[in-house]
């Protein structure tokens, strides 16, 4: 043996592995393993994908154990965006908590506002005026389109196609303009609040919305031409990261991830909340190959289907929005809300269909103005938990395809 001369690179590598393994003793690192027969020495590597990585959509950290390009194991580490939302919820009044809900799933902030307001109203037994309810549905559906647009664009980016991303943002910009006209904000709106909306719709809003819907609907076909049915894109995503319906339910997947696995389950239809039972719309689900326009390679529950369900959902949201515009009544946009809300000593759990799945709020009151406990179920949190199960024996490029199709927003994973 030569002396103890360890090169800088070697030292660094060992230090890195020690760090990676901290708190993870069960990961078996087999270094310098002799492969059977060949005698060719190969090494498995541990690599950190994230918390700063272009395709982990924020600060998700995936620890990959790889053998060349093959990922043997993928362990998600979360918590890098933990902002104690639940602890804050115990210390502020429900109205004050609305801006915090904006920051959970920041791409679909309106739906979070909506869900928390509904939960608190259920606790208080409060009735919301008709116009307020319609405003809420309009905002939620509009925000669902915006959220799915980001998801669509970012997924294209994950697959190496930059152009769809810009197209998606072009359309999203119009939605944000509409939101800005409504409440002045473009990302964190705090617009829907306890008892209804904080302001009425501005003059001419329904006309502008109708104008946008007419403009937007043909664009979906353009996205499909550009990305959804692009041969390379289909080859990259179809049949990759297949999640069976049973697995999806067992892991608590909701939203497009669940529907991509062929489960026709949507809270807006199956457990209707607010006024969703008044609208006609379909629930898109994952398609087997060759059926309903899906490419031959597609499998129910694969990344392509999870992606395509979002595209179809945008169409359905447009349908709901058109019906909302037809039915939109006049009247109050907000119930009379007392200046100080005393939450009764009750407990409630309520879920709404968010951009990424079912957003749940458990609110416990105890007679004071601040709740005793606020628990938030972030859909991405549950959706992400299946990652280590699916990302096994796939290529590194597939990790981007799978995580991208699960479409996590770290704000609501870490809360």
């Amino acid at each position, binding site marked *: 043996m030569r002396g103890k001369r360890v090169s*800088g*690179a070697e*030292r*660094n*590598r060992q230090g890195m592995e020690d760090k990676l393994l901290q708190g993870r003793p069960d990961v078996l690192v087999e270094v310098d393993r002799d492969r059977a027969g060949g005698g060719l020495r190969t090494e498995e*590597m541990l*690599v950190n994908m994230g918390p700063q*990585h*272009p*395709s982990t959509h924020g600060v998700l950290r995936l620890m990959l154990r790889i053998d*060349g*390009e093959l990922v043997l194991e993928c362990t998600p580490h979360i918590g890098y965006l933990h902002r104690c939302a639940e602890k804050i919820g115990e210390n502020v009044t429900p109205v004050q908590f609305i801006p915090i809900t904006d920051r959970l799933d920041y791409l679909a902030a309106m739906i979070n506002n909506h869900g928390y307001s509904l939960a608190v109203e259920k606790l208080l037994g409060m009735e919301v005026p008709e116009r307020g309810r319609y405003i809420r549905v309009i905002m939620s559906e509009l925000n669902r389109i915006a959220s799915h647009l980001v998801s669509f664009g970012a997924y*294209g*980016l*994950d*697959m*190496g*196609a*930059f*152009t769809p991303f*810009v*197209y998606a943002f*072009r359309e999203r910009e*119009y939605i944000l*303009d*509409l939101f*800005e*006209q409504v409440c002045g904000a473009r990302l964190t709106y705090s617009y829907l609040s306890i008892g209804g909306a904080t302001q009425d719709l*501005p*003059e*001419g809003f329904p006309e*502008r919305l109708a*104008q*946008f819907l007419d*403009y937007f609907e*043909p*664009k979906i076909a353009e996205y499909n031409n550009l*990305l959804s049915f*692009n041969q*390379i*894109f289909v*080859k*990259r995503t179809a049949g990759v990261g297949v999640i069976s319906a049973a697995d999806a339910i067992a892991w608590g997947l909701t939203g497009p991830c669940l529907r991509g696995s062929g489960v026709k389950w949507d809270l807006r239809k199956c457990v209707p909340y607010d006024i969703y039972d008044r609208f006609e719309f379909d629930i898109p689900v994952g398609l087997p190959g060759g059926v309903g326009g899906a490419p031959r390679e597609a499998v129910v529950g694969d990344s392509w289907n999870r992606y395509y369900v979002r595209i179809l959902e945008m169409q359905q949201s447009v349908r709901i929005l058109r019906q909302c515009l037809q039915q939109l009544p006049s009247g109050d946009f907000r119930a009379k809300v007392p200046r100080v809300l005393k939450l009764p000593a009750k407990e409630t759990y309520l879920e709404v269909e968010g951009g990424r799945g079912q957003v749940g709020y458990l609110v416990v009151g105890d007679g004071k103005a601040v709740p005793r406990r606020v628990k938030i179920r972030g859909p991405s949190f549950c959706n992400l938990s299946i990652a280590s199960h699916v990302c096994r024996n796939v*290529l*590194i*490029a*597939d*990790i*981007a395809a799978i995580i*991208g199709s699960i479409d996590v927003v770290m704000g609501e994973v870490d809360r």
Partner: protein
Amino acid sequence: MNKFSAEDALRPRFTAAHKALALRGFVIAGVALLAAAVGFGFVAGVAQGVGYAAAVGGVVLAGLTGACCLLAAFVIRFAALVGRVLLTLALPIFLGGVVGIVVLAWIPALLYERVDGIKADHPGAAVSVAQFEAALTGNAAAARGPAYLAALALWPLQFQLTRDVLAVVGVVGFVSLVAMFGIWWERKVAGRMQSRLGPMRVGGWHGWAQSLADGLKLLQKEDIFIAGADRALFRLAPYVAFIPAMCLFIALPFSAAWVARDLEVGLIFIFAMLGVGVLGVLLAGWASNNKWSMLGAMREACQMISYEIPLGFALLVPIMTLGTLRLTAIGEAQSGGFHTWLAFANPFTFIAAIVFFVATLASCKRAPFDLPEAESELVAGYLTEYSGFRWALFFFAEYAEMFAVAALASVLFFGAWYSPLPASWGAAWADGPLWQRAVHGVLYSGPIWFVLKGFFFFFVQLWLRWTLPRIRLDQVMYACVQVLLPLTMVALLGNTLWLWLVRPGAWLAVAVNLILTAIGGLTVVAMAAIVLYGYLNRRRLVGTMAVDPLPGG
């Protein structure tokens, strides 16, 4: 107290640290240019068995580089002043530059041809100035006038040394321009494809100075070495990637006369230089001490080695058809207009042309084969740990390679430096008065066509990049082994049978030529129609929606 004013923000302030960084950047740039020049000269010399070109080219370039570095340092020092002057003169300088490039590429080609003609008439070691003058004026006893000055200027061009030095300077300058223009153009193309404008600010007119500004910025950036990196290899890698990219241009004929070295084995040489480029990437990936870099380097090696096979087979088709490896000869064989282009010679050369283009995409790491630097998978692949000018060198190399393979495609399959117009149409003007000869020259052959065609295929590369998603590694391998390789086999075999069975002028050849021409013509017409339709209906297709501004906004 920090009082901030707009004037302060506008006035560049250079601290000692800035200067040190800038100096370092310039040193790297200088070394890179020097290394490129020496490497270029050396390889050129070795390739032709002439050693002195290396030494002299290197020395001259060293001087030039030093002068440039000094000048650039002055520019930095007096940036405010120079900046103001530059801003005023920006547009004239830019347009002048464009015209200048064309003239610079064009005039030497004419001069070379002239000098070669004179040399051919005077067999001997060297031609005297008087003989030059005689050739220029047609009268040996002419009084010393402008012709004498012209003869004096032309006289050195008959020596290989002069030509080498000119070629080195020209190629290094041209490659830098191609890279800077290519980066700017790519951003503009990307912007337009994505309903954006792309760079619009720097320099005024459509942000023409964006690459220049980026280059200056990169020069001043800190040159970071990460802990545990193999410093020597880490420093070396960018040069190893950069030099082969420059060397590609040694054998690339801009026109029959305007080629740095008209190598007997030009095609093989370019093929080899394309292959050597992978070493730089491998070194960069290994030396970075970063697992993502390493993965990127491995992907590059794997992809490059695989795609050399279909690339090589695709190259065999023109070699077999024309029986030469000399690029100028391959070009000359396609001088008669677009119907003589090799791509349209028979169906199999057309297949070979397409396979060649796809394979070069892979060997240049361009989308959809950009796996080595796949952003969404490997952060930035082998480039992850690079910063400043070292990083820029990789990009210079990439864009130079892109142009080189695009130009090579045009040399091999698409008529090299000849215009698509049938030669017979302009035959009468070829021997007319000077102005007719000049117009004929511009319209029919020369570096302008070469550069135009190169940039056309360059544009196709950009087009693909901003349209397609990225292929996965196993699919890259599949496409190589299962699709491209069989295709090249078919092309090779078919071409062999074709050459053996079909005499030139036979009815089959004529028929196939007609069909191919018809298909090509229809394609061109259809594409033009699509473009026209898109342009006429651009408002409706792109779709605009004006959201009324906010009340009081």
